[in-house]
């Protein structure tokens, strides 16, 4: 009985697999981010860091960062740097230009180090305010523990992976089938040995397929169902050919519309400026990115953590990619002139024979970008929201009213049309917006 011996062996494998998976799940569950909050004595004893944070963000953050260089130097450690000479620091913050003029050596040294870019004067700050700010910047840098210690983009696994479950399930089913087959075979053999006759001689049962073929009604129903099904799925299949709704390619630089348009509420047309005047909405040139990213070389720690946790993306790395492409040297805060144009993957592709003009829809029709592009402000990865089929275009043209108000172009035509048809509103289709030649030439 060769096959019977096999059985305990297989069982053992199954058991082994189950235990491994279970223990793996336990390990992942145990991995908890460790909260570390080492408290160090502040070099600014009488400063209120909370108030300092507010002041810093409103006055200083345009040029300074606490822990890294921006336009001005990193401020963390500034008290130590100047040996706790608060009077000097007050003088510098209140009016650095005066201090430089007075010939102060330290002031001139720092002025020259930073390419002689003068710092704004802040005469409105009291000494207490400045203490508060210093207290804030002297707080130790918060340590954000990355979930993946080595920082590589390894996908974060929470719980048992789906693939594994499916694999095990199919394995178990297979096993069951084999067992059933073996049982059946064994029983047959028993019957044979015991001389039990399973079928009457000569009176064989009619095979199922024969009975089925002879039942004409059933056959007809099946054929009809089959044809209808084929037509349904065939049509559905053909209709989705070249319709790339939901197309969500990976871009060379990860750009989060969620953060820019959603969290930061940057107006779409700030970056896609040509949508107002051109047929193209335009992929923003990199100098537009640098309008903000000259200052923002790192994202907020919470955002960074969120990106790593939820999307396994290191946003700071993406900003680095931008700097590399545009040729920006963070240390000297200048363009190196060596740039590598980014090859973005185009998401919305209209065929060449269809003419579409953004400015017609955005500027004249006053249609929100989201009407076609979907909830962009929620998209971490940009995807194609609309099917971009001709039927979809036409439908909208049939349903959307023309924005005739306050547009002198329409004054005459609106007057004539409303007189003729006694209507106040008319759709794009009424204006000839579904004529072939309007989009195909």
């Amino acid at each position, binding site marked *: 009985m060769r096959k019977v011996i096999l059985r305990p062996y297989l069982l053992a494998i199954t058991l082994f697999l189950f235990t491994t998976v279970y223990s793996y799940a336990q390990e992942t569950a145990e991995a908890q981010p460790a909260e570390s909050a080492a408290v160090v004595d502040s070099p600014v004893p009488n400063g209120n860091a909370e108030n300092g944070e507010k002041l810093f963000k409103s006055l200083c953050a345009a040029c300074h960062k606490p822990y890294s260089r921006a336009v001005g130097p990193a401020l963390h450690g500034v008290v130590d740097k100047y040996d706790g000479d608060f009077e000097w620091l007050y003088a510098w913050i209140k009016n650095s230009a005066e201090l430089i003029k007075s010939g102060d050596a330290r002031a001139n040294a720092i002025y020259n180090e930073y390419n002689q870019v003068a710092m704004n004067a802040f005469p409105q700050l009291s000494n207490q305010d400045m203490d508060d700010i210093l207290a804030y910047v002297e707080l130790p840098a918060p340590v954000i523990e990355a979930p993946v210690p080595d920082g590589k983009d390894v996908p974060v696994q929470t719980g048992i992976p789906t693939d594994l479950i499916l694999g095990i399930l199919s394995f178990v089913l297979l096993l069951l089938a084999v067992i059933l087959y073996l049982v059946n075979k064994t029983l047959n053999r028993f019957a044979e040995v015991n001389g039990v006759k399973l079928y009457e001689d000569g009176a064989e049962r009619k095979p199922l397929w024969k009975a089925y073929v002879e039942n004409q009604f059933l056959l007809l129903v099946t054929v009809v169902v089959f044809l209808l099904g084929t037509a349904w799925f065939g049509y559905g299949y053909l209709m989705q*050919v*070249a319709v*790339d709704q939901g*197309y969500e*390619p990976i871009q060379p630089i990860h750009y989060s519309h969620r953060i820019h348009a959603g969290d930061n509420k940057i107006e779409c047309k700030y970056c896609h*400026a*040509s949508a107002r*005047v*051109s*047929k*193209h909405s*335009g*992929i*923003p*040139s*990199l*100098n*537009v990115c640098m309008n903000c990213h000259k200052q923002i070389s790192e994202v907020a720690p919470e955002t960074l953590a969120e990106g790593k946790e939820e999307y396994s993306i290191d946003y700071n790395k993406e900003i680095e990619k931008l700097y590399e*492409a*545009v*040729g920006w040297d963070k240390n000297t805060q200048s363009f190196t002139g060596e*740039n590598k*144009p*980014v*090859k*973005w*993957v*185009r998401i919305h*592709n209209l*065929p*060449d*024979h269809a*003419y579409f*003009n953004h*400015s*017609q829809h955005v*500027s*004249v029709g006053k249609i929100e970008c989201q009407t076609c592009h979907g909830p962009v402000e929620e998209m971490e990865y940009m995807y194609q929201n609309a099917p971009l089929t001709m039927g979809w275009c036409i439908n909208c043209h049939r349903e959307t009213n023309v924005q005739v108000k*306050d*547009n*002198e*172009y*329409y*004054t*005459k*035509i609106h007057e*004539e*049309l409303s007189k*003729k048809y006694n209507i106040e509103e008319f759709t794009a289709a009424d*204006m*000839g917006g579904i*004529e*072939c*030649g*309007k989009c*195909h*030439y």
Partner: protein
Amino acid sequence: MSLDKKYWRNPEELNADSSVLEAIQKNEFVEDLPSKSQIREEESSDDSSTSRRDFLKYVGFSTAAATIAACEGPVVKSIPYVFQPERIVPGVAEYYATTMADGFDFSSVLVKAREGRPIKIEWNDKATAKAAGGARVHASVLSLYDTKRLQNPLVDGADVTWKTFNKSVQNDLDTVGDKQIVLLTQTFASPSTSKLVEDFKVKYPTAKHVVYDAISEHATLEAFNAKYGVRALPNYNFAKAKTIVSIGADILGDWQGGGFDADYAKSHTPTNGEMSKHYQFEANLTSTGGNADVRVLASPSAQKSILVEIYKQITGDSVSSKLPSEYQKKVADAVNHLKKGRSNSVVVTGLQDKAAQFLALQINEALNSSVIDVVNYRLIRQGSDADVMSVVKDMNAGKVGAVIMCGVDPAYTLPNAESFLAGLKKVKTTVSFALKKNKTAALCKYVGALPHYLESWGDIQFTRSEFGLMQPTIQKLFNTKQFQDCLLTWSGNDTSYYDYLKNNFSSYSNGVSWNTALHDGVFTSSMEEVGSEPSTNTSASQMASQLLKSSSKGSFELTLYSKIAMGDGKGANNPWLQEFPDPITRNTWDNYLTISKKDADELDLENRITSNGAIDGDIVDIKLGNTIVSNVPIMVQPGQAPGTLGLALGYGQVEGLQEEMKVGVNAYPLYNNFITTQSVEISKVDGNHEFASLQLQNTMAGRKDIIVETTLADFVNKDKEEWNPTPMFSKDHIEYPFDSKEVNLWQQFDRSIGHHFNLSIDLNSCTGCGACIIACHSENNVPVVGKAEVRNNRNMHWLRIDRYYSAGDTFKEEQERYETDGALDHHRNVEVESFDNPQVAFQPVMCQHCNHAPCETVCPVGAIGHGRQGQNQMTYNRCIGTRYCGNNCPYKVRRFNWFKYNRNDEFDYHMNNDLGRMVLNPDVTVRSRGVMEKCSFCMQMTQKSILDAKRDGRPVKDSEFQTACSNACDSGALVFGDVNDKSSEVYKKLQDDRKFYLLGYLGVKPNVFYQTKVTNS
């Protein structure tokens, strides 16, 4: 009743028994599938091992493969700017004003650029000066993207850097010693370049500047110098003219720089019952002759007598003119009109003879003509034949140490090219600056790669007071440098030509700011005092007798001319220009010897028409002294003066051209002593030449109402219904006009709301120049199909300019004569008169955008729709290529894509390479194989105008609505606009009595209408 005139397009149509013609008319709509001969031989089915079964297998497999492949869309990459230039918005066109100046064509232009690449040339409305052929100017943008352009400077045929190039040339120049350095250049007409050349002469005192024009105006320049003391060309304003007498001057062609057509059209269109009267005495039938009111056949020698006779009668000078008696009446008529028009009269001549030009100036002075302008003279031709000849002599004598050429190709264009080539071998340092490796450049040691004018800086002085600036509109495509930059380097000046130009600008700008001038492209300066009184007092009478002395020796008088398409041959590698049909012969891709029917019969020469309507011709050799130009095809040309021949210059180039463009014969060897009229012998040789002509294609099959023509007298005095009757239809024995609702089968739509576009075409103003054809190509990505396909009736022109011949007599006279003459005599008479000197009418025809379009109803897939703005809309992606529409179109304006004309090695023109494709208009679809296409009324342009207005929240201005053709037409023949705007110009045209519809009686209600042609005869 001019309507009953008999119009014909081809001599064959006059032959009533022509079986060929009958066959063509019967087979009008039959176009066979591409036959074996058109498919490459190895693919032909006879000797193929592929069986039908295999074929089906392949089809099945490839269909399945294609279906599967089509399911997955390709990944499209988009690369935006890293730093976007402030003014460039992707998708929005930029316009720059600049100036074209290639030594032959000088014109202010507007360049339309998309994303930093020029895609179209338009006229600059601010410009007053133009000296160029409209078709060539519009086509010049394609020459920028020519794959045959030089991409690097060469030394001894190898690519080098500019540094090495300049250093080597400079070394050579330094060692030239006391030998001459010759700068042999095109006409620059550039004040800064002139100054630069003077600077160069300071460094190299033996240097000498010689200007060489391939097609010379030396005679006129000398005559003008003799009379007014300055080497320049007189300027003309034909808009003021009441009487124009032209003796062999192709004033609508390239005569004295050309560019007179727009002004000519203004005075030659009836306004307030008046129009100019134009007499043309010529040998070749030119488009000028075609537009003339009275055209008299005159050989070049007869033209001389006519000129002297006119001179005699106007000035009263007593010289003998030896005028043949047959011209006496016509000359007397012309003189009468000249005297009547007096100061609004002008006499011009195209005879390349100092004496002739001097007499013309003398006559105009006597007439006190205001049409000619001798104060604000033209400076766009400065070539001196004598100087060029002496350079050739000096080179052969070994006196020249270095020759530096720019923009010239003497090895191809000089009549005595052999002598030049012999001389060139004796010159140590040979430098040639050229766009392409032409014949001269190929023989030079140093070859400088020139940038195209759209990549260059420059200043141009058109006339004494009119200037233009040239600015780059694109980054240099190749490693090229301007000639002027090199001159600066060689002179030891390390400023760039741009700085030099800018510094020099203030010396002549008369206070105009650089930025304003650059923005406008043109500016006017006051006329500085140059020129002195003529040194010698030239006697006109002496000149007259001298003119008549030069007599002909050969049996034929040949007149060399330049074609509207090719000019002097600079555009030979431009497929748009090669496929541009000549306005008169309607031939493409060729030059040929035009000959009169009488002479052709005598020499047993003929043109044959093949069964598919293509034309073949016999071949002759032309002999001038010891020069023989062999294998010239002949074209029997109605209206060619007997005993004369015509041949176009600018063809037959070989070097620096793509294989497909090496067409025609080189006529420059016949341009002996730079004189366009020569006495030659011709002899028939064996062989047959295949023409690619649009002449007999798509016959109108005897349909009436194609052209409506009347005389000025009838137009002024008679009722409109007499000279432009409305077609009438009878219903229930009541006559209704053709556009009445009563006789209409169709339901009418109300088009009174919104825009309704119409195009008016004035047959009087249209000179047949063809700028519209090229503008249409450029705007609408019309493919080039090549010579063989044109011959197969498969040209893709969306807009064609039909040319009709007609006998001078009216139908009424014909009837009368029919009764007196015998039937046979009569037929012969009509034929002879038509052939001898036919009247010519030009008619631009594009899609007529019928409101009741016959093409729309027959489309089985609904690919043609009608817009409420009047356009007949062709939807390419819906078209399945049944060609029903083309067959049902009464105007034959639909063109079928028999092949894929882009990215196809069989059609190796601009659409087959990355460089050439840069000229394509991104707003217009590039059509694929198997679809019908046609004029769209430039939908993309009207849509843009409407959108601009909507965005600004204002009504559209009338002048904003344009099509490519109406925009390119500066003679005012094409007027496009919205007829629902009652203040628009096209609405006024619609109300004009001269209005008629092409085949209006069909009741298809076209949105294109024509204005009756009025002749002042």
